[in-house]
């Protein structure tokens, strides 16, 4: 009886986490470079009251046994790195990656972080930085007298300086990729950190070794599909409701048991 109460509670908690994740996805429907998350659930451990294959009588085995499950738990929140939709902005500092890979940026604490959000800006020294001011790694500095910036599909950055007509190459953007991108750590601010599960970053030139190409003047938007999230939310809500009914039934049974002995 108590098992039922806790199993149902574990089911409700699992659905609560599901709704939390869906709400976060929906909140980030307009966040450039955001990758949606999905909660994957698993069953918890089993209590075997009668093991399959144990002897029932001489020469007779229990064919299936009895195993009582103890509920559900969240196994993982998986980041889905499917490509988001593209928005053509015409802004020469908006970059996106068509395919695999991450931009590398330097966080204030000196660690390298990885991001798909390519809305770069210039800081007071002409460095390419993210909206939070984290500089690209390796750094790209645009000379103050640059008239136009062009960034090629392979990540080469060229500028046309005032009074010149020929573009001059001033840097190279490199991208990083991981064996297991789903194992990256969410750092917030659209940044990811490498972990033991993701494997070490393999850096390279855009377009090489499985890395995507860089496109200028285009932003990668969030890959959240509102309709899909809504459907997930309805399912989660109904599953939550069903589990609460299970608690009610278990509670009613307990109440009856408590009233077996009268007056």
């Amino acid at each position: 009886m108590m098992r039922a109460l806790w199993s149902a509670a574990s089911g409700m908690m699992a659905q609560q986490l599901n709704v939390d994740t869906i709400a976060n996805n929906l909140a980030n429907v307009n966040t450039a470079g955001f990758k949606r998350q999905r909660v994957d659930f698993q069953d918890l451990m089993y209590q075997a009251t009668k093991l399959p294959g144990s002897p029932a009588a001489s020469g007779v085995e229990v064919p299936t046994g009895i195993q009582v499950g103890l509920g559900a738990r969240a196994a993982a929140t998986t980041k889905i790195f499917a490509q988001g939709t593209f928005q053509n902005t015409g802004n020469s500092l908006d970059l996106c990656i068509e395919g695999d890979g991450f931009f590398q940026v330097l966080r204030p604490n000196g660690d390298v972080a990885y991001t798909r959000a390519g809305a770069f800006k210039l800081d007071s020294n002409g460095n390419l930085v993210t909206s939070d001011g984290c500089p690209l790694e390796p750094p790209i500095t645009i000379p103050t007298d640059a008239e136009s910036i062009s960034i090629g599909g392979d990540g080469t950055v060229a500028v046309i300086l005032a009074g010149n007509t020929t573009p001059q190459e001033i840097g190279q953007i490199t991208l990083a990729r991981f064996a297991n991108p789903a194992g990256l750590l969410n750092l917030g601010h659209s940044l990811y950190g490498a972990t033991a599960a993701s494997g070490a970053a393999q850096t390279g030139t855009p377009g090489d070794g499985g890395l995507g190409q860089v496109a200028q003047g285009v932003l990668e938007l969030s890959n959240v599909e509102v309709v899909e999230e809504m459907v997930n939310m309805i399912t989660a809500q109904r599953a939550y409701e069903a589990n609460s009914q299970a608690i009610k039934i278990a509670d009613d049974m307990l109440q009856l048991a408590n009233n077996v002995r009268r007056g």
Partner: protein
Amino acid sequence: MLRGLYTAASGIQAQTAKNDIYVANLANISSAGYRRSQVSQESFPQSLAALDNGAPIQLRGGVTVSSGGLDLTPGPITQTANDFDLTIVGSGFFCVRTPAGIAFTRNGQFQLDADSVLVNRDGYPVLGVKGIIRIASGKLKVDEQGQAWDGDKPVDALRIVDFSDGANLSKQAGSLLVGTGSRPADDYTIVQGAFEGSNVNALLELQRMMNGFRLYEANVRALQMQDDSIETLLSQALG
């Protein structure tokens, strides 16, 4: 008279045990690849006869939960944009290598680990016919027969097994099954970019629970009625 009390109590216990199993099923309505547990009950004399070879004991009444079992009907398939989500359509199980040996699962939510090895959510390697599957390029392609490709390069075929008699499987946490008697599956196709959900139906599970609740209630009433009779008898005897 007293025997009837125990008969009603056995009914209460059996319904409680069944309810535990139904609730656990319901809690796993979102667990990918989960197979719902079934439960059946039998009356006491049969089990006692089975215990006592050749000399059946005629003790009537009473019920016990006798055996579980797995409902192996397929669950709903959800399409995703993720190449590492695989579904078996038809009969069969994926094989994963756990520290305790090979386990079987219908949960096809896989990913790569830091060494580019195809693993499940618990990090257990997914087995191919030749062993673990390494996808160095990070681009997995799986065809309908279960042949896995690392980019353009064929690596191995997924090991899909089936059981002649599914009855011998027992469950482990993580939607895993363990058991003996596996043989290569032959009647299946693999779909990439989709995963199979739980085969628990909330409506049916709630209906089983409600039905069980009423049986439980009936047994409680039966118990109370006998208690009342004993009380009457005692009060008359003791005058």
